C-alpha cells in the first residue's frame, strides 16, 4: 500500500525529553521515505534517512527527537515521511524551518513540530533535549542552553491534543451518526 498508517496511540504530553539526532538543512521526503520503498513498510523502516545519517535507521529509539536545520521535509506531499518517523518512535521534530506540506501533515498526524531559529547549532547528536511544547521552549540538558521557538497556533495545538485530524474527524462522525 502506498501509505502506511500508524497503529500507535499518540498521547499528547506538554513536556517531553529525549535524545537528539542532529540533521542538516534541506532534508527531503525522498531521503525520509524513498520512492522505491513506498509499497514496503519494512524496507522504509530499514532505510529511512540513511542517505543523511547512515546509522539512523538502526539506532534511533522510541522517544528520540530530531533537531534539524532549514527546510526540513521539503519535496513530495507523501505523508509516509512524517508517518515513518513516528513509526520509528520519533517524538518530535525541532527545526529552523519546515517545508509547508510536511509541516501541516505533521499536525494532521499529531507529530509535534516546532520552529526554532538557529537550533541546529546548539545541539550535537546524543545530547538530551527537553521541549515544552505549548511554550515552545527548548533546553539542551547537556549544555544548559535554553531557546525559544515560535509558539504553535492554538488551532494546531488542539490538533496535537486531539490526537490528530483523523481522530478528530472519526469522533465527530461517530457522534453525528448516533443522532
Amino acid at each position, binding site marked *: 500500500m502506498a501509505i502506511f498508517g500508524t497503529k500507535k496511540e499518540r498521547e499528547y504530553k506538554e513536556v517531553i525529553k529525549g535524545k537528539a539526532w542532529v540533521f542538516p538543512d534541506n532534508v527531503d521526503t525522498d531521503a525520509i521515505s524513498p520512492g*522505491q520503498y513506498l509499497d514496503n513498510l519494512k524496507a522504509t523502516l530499514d532505510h529511512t534517512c540513511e542517505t543523511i545519517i547512515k546509522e539512523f535507521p538502526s539506532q534511533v529509539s522510541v522517544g528520540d527527537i530530531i533537531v534539524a536545520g532549514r527546510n526540513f521535509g*521539503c519535496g513530495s506531499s507523501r505523508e509516509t515521511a512524517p508517518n515513518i518517523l513516528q513509526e520509528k518512535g520519533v517524538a518530535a521534530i525541532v527545526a529552523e524551518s519546515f517545508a509547508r506540506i510536511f509541516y501541516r501533515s505533521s499536525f494532521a498526524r499529531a507529530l509535534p513540530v516546532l520552529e526554532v531559529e538557529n537550533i541546529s547549532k546548539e545541539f550535537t547528536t546524543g545530547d538530551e533535549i527537553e521541549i515544552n511544547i505549548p511554550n515552545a521552549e527548548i533546553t539542551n540538558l547537556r549544555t544548559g542552553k535554553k531557546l525559544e521557538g515560535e509558539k504553535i497556533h492554538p488551532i494546531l495545538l488542539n490538533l496535537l491534543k486531539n490526537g490528530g485530524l483523523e481522530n478528530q474527524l472519526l469522533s465527530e462522525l461517530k457522534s453525528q451518526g448516533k443522532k
Partner: protein
Amino acid sequence: MSGKTIAEKILAAHSLSKKEISPGDIINAKIDLIMSHIGTAKVALDFRKIKPSKMRKVFDPDKIVVLLDHYSPAPSEKWAAAHDIIRKFVKNHSINSFYDIREGVCHQVLPEKGHVRPGMLVVGGDSHTTTYGAFNAASCGIGNTDLFYAYVKGELWFRVPSTIKFNITSNLQHRVMSKDIIIKMAGDYTAEIATYKSIEFSGKTMEDLSIDSRMTMSNFALELGAKFAFGVPDQKVANWIKNRTSEPFELVKPDPDANYDKTYELDVSDLEPQVSCPHTVDNVKPITEVSGTKINQAFLGSCTNGRFEDLEVAAEILAKNEIHNDVRMIVTPASREIWLEAAKTGVAETLINAGAIITNPNCGACFGAHGGLLGPGEICISSANRNFKGRMGSEAAKIYLGSPATVAVSAIKGELTDPRDF
C-alpha cells in the same frame, strides 16, 4: 486599509471563518476542487474506519477528480491492487471525474479537461498542485490525512500566506525557456524563499510566455517552497480556459496597492540556460559551467516539462540529429492529448527517428517508480522537478535538471551541452 493580493482575495471568498483576513491568520475554508491520485487508495482504506458506516460519504462527488498517473500501468501486483481499490472506491462514491491510466499526469489532465478555473480554491494529494496557479486558482498540495478530511468535510484549515512578487522583464535568448528562469530563481533565492508564501509572477516576460511555459513556472515554484504560485491573470489564460470549459469564471487580479513581503525584479535578457546540479534543486549553475559532463540518460517528461511545447522543441532540435549511442532518451508525454498531438504533427516520428523511446503518459521515472530508473554511478539530465539523491533509482546516481532544450541537445552530444547553438 491596503489592497489585497490574489491569495488574500481567493481565501477571503472561501473563508468559513471571518471574511476580513490578513497574512498569518488561520481560517477554515470551503474547497472547490479536490484532486487525488494514488493516495486515493489510502483515503479508501481510511473511509472503512468511519463508524457508523452510513456516515461514509464524500462531501460532494462532483468536486473531486481522481486519476491513476502514478505506477501506471501497474508495475507490480501491489500497485495493481491499489489501483483496483481506487477504481472500486470512485464507483461506490459516484466520483464521475475519474481518469484511468490512459489519460496522463494529474497536473496536465485537470486543466485540459476544464476542471480548473480562476478564483477556485483547489487542494491536491500531490505537492505540485501549485501548477494550477497558472490558471489563476489558489491551489496547493496536502498530505493524505488532510486529503481524507477534505474528502469528508469539503473544507480545511489554511494559514493565510503573505505574498512575494517576481517581476520578470526582457526577452529570453534563443532556446532559453521558462524552466531556465525558475531554476535560476531557485539558485539565486534558495529552495525555501517562498516557504508558506504565495508567489505572484508578473511582468512582460511572463505575459509573453505560452500557457505551457507558465505552467512550468507555477509547477516548479513548489521547489521554492511556495504554497500558491499565480501566473499573470490575463486574456491569454482566460481564452485558454474558455476553450476547455463552458463554466463561467472571473479572473482574480491583485489590487494595485496590495501588500507584498518583497518584490524581486528579474531582467532575463542575458539569462543562460540553467541546471540544478546534484542533489538539491537550488544547487544551480549556468550550463556553460557544467557542459561536457557525460550523461547516460536524458529524460523528457513530467508535470513540469512533458507538454506539447516541450516535445516540439525537442523534435526541432533532434530533427536532423541522432541521439548519442551512449545515451538512452526517454520521452514521457504528460497526457494522452499531448501524445496524440505529437503523433499527428510528426513530433513523435521525429523523436523516434532520432532514437528516443516514448512511453505512455504517466509519472513514471520522475519519482523513481518505473520506466527508466538509474543504476549506481549513472548520470541523467532530466526535465522534471527533483534531483534528490535516490529520486530516480540508485542513491549513487546523479540527476541534473534542465529545460527540454537542454535535455534534447545533451542527448545528441552525450554530455551536458548549451542548447543556444542549436
